[in-house]
């Protein structure tokens, strides 16, 4: 019964989205009402939600006649992990994808209803129709090659449960939905780009609409990426948070091009320049989400995240090819309309900073794409199995990232159109002095690693410029209205949430950049084999092993080491690194214990004697890792600030 409901809901949703696409395109061509297509968007959301509910019901009831449940379900898995096992394997994750896509489609239809003028001026039916076509593709996957509701007969009594790595930490309930809200939502700006190209309405309306509709998924994607890094830090037990793994890269590449787009769209909006380029970035972003999914979900590249091999590879490749051809054709056909009426006036202007930003982000994307694809190229061309190591990514990307760090402060300080060298130098003066002071202080307190030092100095410079750009307008305002300085800062920030939201996001990125540079330069680790009661000293830290014991839980068994940690002779924390044995895995999963702070103390139980007489414990000490997580949260706060007050003010 559950199978039937789920299967039927998916087939009906497929038909609805196909009908919705036809209705929307017909409305756009014949200037007929978009009403039926909007209705289809609502129906689509209801049907996909029904399919998801059916799957959750089957998972919670342990209905092992449903194929997906036999793959990821087990009677012993706790309820929380059973619920989130919706996204612990391929078919379920495509179902989540379809749900989020349907939510965005319904939201777009609502927006077009509430703002009919803006809706029509941004492609109207063409935009909604394009999004429906994307829905058709994903529902087609669910109906055929990635059908989660297949019949298993006879139904087994129990299943293996989700992949152990995916049920080892509650954060698995947060990271994938956040990431998907971003990754999938990037289809909406793509739909806007196609809508603008199809309809030929390339006036001033689309940059504003796409910018807002990109900011939401971009914010979620940023949070999702940071949450994924945090999850990998807390779960994988190697003390790192980013490994340039293909799946990490797959989520990072669209983030890079979407970030480039968020900057170039401001030039398109303000100066009507770079339109072709800006639209190309939106399209490239969507294509990279398809390519990333193809690379990681089709089994062509092995990865920690890779699910089982499946037929969906060719589907993705075909959809990727068709989208690429249609988009390129449309861009070529509209080349005349897209030509810029304006011109770059001076190299010393905000426009040039945006151009530099775009060049850097595209280069960054290229580095990541090449590194991700190279194993495929090498195997096809030379028949050798290789992997591309982190040194490649770091060597190529660190200089680009440093330039971006500086630009995040320099760009906002440059005026539009034409800046006078004298005014720009005057703006640079105090931040430069501040950066030099910070540099000297850092060198004096012992920050000698060049990578970390230069990042701190450039970030200090950028923060100084951002602060100056905040104080400057506030000071003018205080003078004009005779306001108290604090009231003036508050007033000018609230009057321009879009700009200051951007500054907050930049600040978040700078905080994270310092965290990344310092944690990468000053990580240190050591391992000891200890007997209960024995302690070991490591720099300012000391750890003492109390005991090792085994623990039986319903879905797993664990071996736990109880450790007392001290810093400077003072008790710091009691930590319990453990090894978890899941019934469906033939190797244990190490769960580290982390004491977070300015310097993280990260303990891993790497081995133990079978009689409990010794335990091998590894300690990894990394400074400023928490700055990365804080940076991500600050960035998200910036996005919220850029979007929300404007809406409140409008009411």
């Amino acid at each position, binding site marked *: 019964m559950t199978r039937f409901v789920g299967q039927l809901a998916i087939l009906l949703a497929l038909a609805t989205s196909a009908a919705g696409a036809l209705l929307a395109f017909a409305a756009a061509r014949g200037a007929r009402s978009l009403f039926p297509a909007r209705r289809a968007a609502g129906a689509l959301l209801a049907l996909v939600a029904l399919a998801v509910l059916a799957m959750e019901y089957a998972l919670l009831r342990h209905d092992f006649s449903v194929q997906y449940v036999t793959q990821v379900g087990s009677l012993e898995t706790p309820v929380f992990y059973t619920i989130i096992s919706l996204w612990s394997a391929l078919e379920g994750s495509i179902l989540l994808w379809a749900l989020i896509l349907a939510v965005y489609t319904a939201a777009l239809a609502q927006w077009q209803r509430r703002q009919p003028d803006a809706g029509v001026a941004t492609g109207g039916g063409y935009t909604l129709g394009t999004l429906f076509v994307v829905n058709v593709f994903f529902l087609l996957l669910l109906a055929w090659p990635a059908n989660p509701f297949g019949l298993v007969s006879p139904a087994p009594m129990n299943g293996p449960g989700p992949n152990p790595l995916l049920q080892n930490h509650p954060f698995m309930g947060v990271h994938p939905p956040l990431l998907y809200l971003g990754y999938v939502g990037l289809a909406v700006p793509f739909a806007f780009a196609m809508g603008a190209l199809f309809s030929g309405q390339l006036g001033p309306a689309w940059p504003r609409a796409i910018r807002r509709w990109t900011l939401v998924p971009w914010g979620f994607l940023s949070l999702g990426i940071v949450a994924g890094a945090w999850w990998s830090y807390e779960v994988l037990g190697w003390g790192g948070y980013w490994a340039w793994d293909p799946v990490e890269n797959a989520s990072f590449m669209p983030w890079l091009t979407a970030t480039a787009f968020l900057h170039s769209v401001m030039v398109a909006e303000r100066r009507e320049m770079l339109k072709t380029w800006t639209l190309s970035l939106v399209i490239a972003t969507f294509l990279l989400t398809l390519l990333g999914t193809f690379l990681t979900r089709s089994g062509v590249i092995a990865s920690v995240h890779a699910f089982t091999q499946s037929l969906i590879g060719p589907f993705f490749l075909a959809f990727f090819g068709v989208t690429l051809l249609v988009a390129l054709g449309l861009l070529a056909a509209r080349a005349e309309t897209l030509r810029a009426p304006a011109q770059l006036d001076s190299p010393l202007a905000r426009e040039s900073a945006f151009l530099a930003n775009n060049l850097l982000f595209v280069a960054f994307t290229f580095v990541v794409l090449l590194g991700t694809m190279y194993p495929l190229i090498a195997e096809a061309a030379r028949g*050798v199995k*290789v992997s591309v190591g982190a040194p490649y990514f770091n060597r*190529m990307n660190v200089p680009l990232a440093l330039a971006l760090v500086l630009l995040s402060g320099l760009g906002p300080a440059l005026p539009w159109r034409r800046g006078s060298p004298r005014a720009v130098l005057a703006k640079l003066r105090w931040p430069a002095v501040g950066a030099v002071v910070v540099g000297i202080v850092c060198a004096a307190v012992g920050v000698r690693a060049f990578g970390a030092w230069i990042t701190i100095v450039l970030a200090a410079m950028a923060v100084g410029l951002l602060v100056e750009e905040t104080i400057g307008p506030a000071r003018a305002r205080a003078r004009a209205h005779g306001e108290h300085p604090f009231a003036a800062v508050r007033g000018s920030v609230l009057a321009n949430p879009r700009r200051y939201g951007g500054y907050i996001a930049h600040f978040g990125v700078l905080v994270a950049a310092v965290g990344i540079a310092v944690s990468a330069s000053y990580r240190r680790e050591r391992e000891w084999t200890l007997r209960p009661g024995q302690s070991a000293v490591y720099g300012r830290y000391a750890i003492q092993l109390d005991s090792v014991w085994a623990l039986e839980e319903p879905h797993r068994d664990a071996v736990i080491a109880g450790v007392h940690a001290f810093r400077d002779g003072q008790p710091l924390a009691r930590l319990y690194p453990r090894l978890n044995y899941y*019934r469906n895995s033939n*190797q244990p999963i190490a769960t580290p214990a982390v004491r977070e702070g300015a310097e993280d103390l990260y303990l891993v139980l*790497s081995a133990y004697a079978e*009689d409990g007489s010794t335990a091998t414990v590894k300690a990894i000490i990394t400074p400023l890792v928490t700055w990365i997580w804080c940076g991500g949260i600050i960035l998200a706060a910036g996005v919220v600030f850029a979007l929300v007050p404007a809406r409140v003010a409008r009411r």
Partner: protein
Amino acid sequence: MKRRTGSLVFGGVVILGVFAYLAWGAVGSNVVYFLTPGELLARTPEARGVAVRLGGMVEQGSVRWDAERRELRFRLQDGTHAVEVLSVGAPPQMFAEGMGAVVEGVFTDGVFRSHNVMVKHSNEYRAPQAGEQPAEYYRQLFRTQSR
């Protein structure tokens, strides 16, 4: 007017082109080859001193653990060839003779010096097959404790 946009695009393409060339060179010199013991021995001249990943089975009876010097020695074989591996530090919990393992390191003077020993699990996640007893190992700890 048009010329200026053209030169801008041209400049951008040139910069990205040079950058792409640099990246291509960098990726080529930063790859880590994945080899079996047989392949490693066959490629000895070129593979000597280069960081590679070596994958194979831990040969029965070859594991020597020197607790004093914290040195682990074993032989990794692929059925026809075997390579002597030396690594510093305790082996991972599931490390055992007859198991698949992947080691990262450098092959010099007939010994593979590894800085990272990984118990091999295929990248594809796989549930244990009949006959495999994943829980067997930790149960010994229970037994010794309840005794």
